[in-house]
C-alpha cells in the first residue's frame, strides 16, 4: 500500500499525524506530510486506513493498494 497527501486539499487538521504518527508528520505550518516515500508497511495498514477515513478534507489518497 502506498499513500500520498493532496496538498491542494489538506488544511492542516492534523488527524493523520495524530492517528498514524509513524506514517505522517507535519510541516512548520501544520500541514500534513507523508513521512518517507509513502509506502505503508503491512503492520501499519490499519493505522493508514484510520488516518484516511478520519481526514475531514479527504486529502489522503491511496496510490497503490496492497
Amino acid at each position, binding site marked *: 500500500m502506498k499513500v500520498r497527501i493532496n496538498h491542494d486539499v489538506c*488544511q*492542516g*487538521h*492534523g488527524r493523520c*499525524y*495524530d492517528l498514524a504518527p509513524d506514517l505522517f508528520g*507535519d510541516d*512548520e*505550518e*501544520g500541514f500534513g506530510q507523508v513521512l518517507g516515500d509513502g509506502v505503508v508497511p503491512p503492520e501499519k495498514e490499519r493505522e493508514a486506513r*484510520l488516518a484516511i*477515513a*478520519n*481526514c*475531514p*478534507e*479527504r486529502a489522503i489518497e491511496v496510490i497503490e493498494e496492497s
Partner: protein
Amino acid sequence: MPLDERFPRDFNETRENRPLGVRNEIVTGPVSDWSTDFSHLEDEWSDDPYVIQDDLRERCPIAHTSRFGGGWLPVRYEDVSAIAYDTKRFSSRAIIMSNFRPPKELAPIGGSPPISSDPPFHHDARKLLLPAFTKTAVGRQEPATRAFCHSLIDAFDGSEVVDAAADYAQHIPMRVIANMLGFPPEDGPQFAMFVENTLEGVNLPPDERIERMSLLFNYLLAQVHDHLDHPRDDLTTYLINAELYGRKLEPSHVVGTMALLLIAGIDTTWSAIGASLWHLAGNPGDRERLVGERGLLPTAIEEFLRAYAPVTMARLVKEDMHWRGVDMRADDWILLSFPAANRDPEQFERASEVIIDREINRHAAFGLGIHRCVGSHLARMELRVALEVWLERIPEFSLADASAVTWASGQIRGPRALPLRIG
C-alpha cells in the same frame, strides 16, 4: 527605538472616516416556524438546537428567516460543506450573524483577519499565524496547562458541588490564550465580558453594541501600547512587528487579529470542555468506561467534538443566485452550522448517538476548507488535558441539578452554568 505611531489610544478614533455598513430592524421573540423564521438567539435554540435541526433536515434542509435582515440555515452536511468550500459565492466579510452588515469595502480583509478574510488576502494573513499554532508549538503550553488544571481542582477544596463551567472549563482557555498573547492572567473576568458582548450581544441596540465592542478594542489597544513600551516574546509583539507585502500590518489588522485570538480562543474551548463534562456527568456508563479505559479518550474527545461541536460560523451571499433550490439574495446571511452537519445521518452512522469509541469520525467541528480553525491543535490539547486531569482527580461526578444547567446562546454553544456533584 522609533515610535510606532500606527496605533491610536481610543478605538473610536479608528471608526471615523470608515465606510458605513447596513443595519436592519432587530426582531426578537419566540420563533413561529423554524423553517421560515429561525433565530439562533432564542432560548429554544440554545436549550436544544439538535431537535430543531433534525426536524429541518427532514422537511426543509435550507431554512429561511427574515430576521437579521434575511438569512439561510442549511442543516445537511453536503450543503454546509459546499458553502464552506465555496469562497467565490460566499464571503467571510462578516462571520457573526447579526443586525449589521459591514461595508463591502471591508472585504477581502474584514474586521478580524484571517477569519473575516476572503481569498487571496486570507491565505497571507493566515500564514502569519500558522507557525504559532502547530501541534508542536502548542505542545509547549501543555505542562503549564496541566498544572493550571490541577490548581483549579485544588481550589475546589472539599466542595461537594462545583460549577464545572464557571469554575473550571472557562478558566483553562482564558489562561492559555492570555499567556500566548502576553496579557495579564488576572484579566480573565474582563475576557468573559468581552466574549459575552461579542457573541451574545447580537440583538442589543446598535449604540449599546458599539459601546460594548469599544470596551474590547480599547483593552486591546492598551495591550498594544504596553507591548510597544515593553516588547516581549508573545503573539502581541509578534503581530506588532509582523510584515505583509513588505510593510508592517495595518493597525486594524493587528487589533482585529488579537480580538479574534482572544474571543475565539476562549469561548469555543470553554464550551467544548463544559459540554464533554456535561455529557459524562449525565451518562454514568460512558464516564465509568472512560475512567476504566483511558485509551478511549482520543476517540471520546473526537466524538464530543462531533456531537457537541461548539462553533457555528456565518457567511454573506455575494450575489443574487438560485442555490440548491432556494433564491438567495446578495448580502443574505448563511448561518453555517457545523453542529448540524455533524449530526447528519447521511454522513454519520447513528448520528444522534454519542459513541465514545467511534473510530471513523470525519466531523467538521473545526470547519472545512481554507478557514479550518487555526487554533484546532491548541483546542484539542486543552480539551485533552482538561479531561485527563478532571478524570484523574474526580473520577466520580454527576449533575447536581440538571435543570440548573444553562447554555450560551448565539453561534458558540456550551454550558455556562454546570453544577456538578463531586463529593
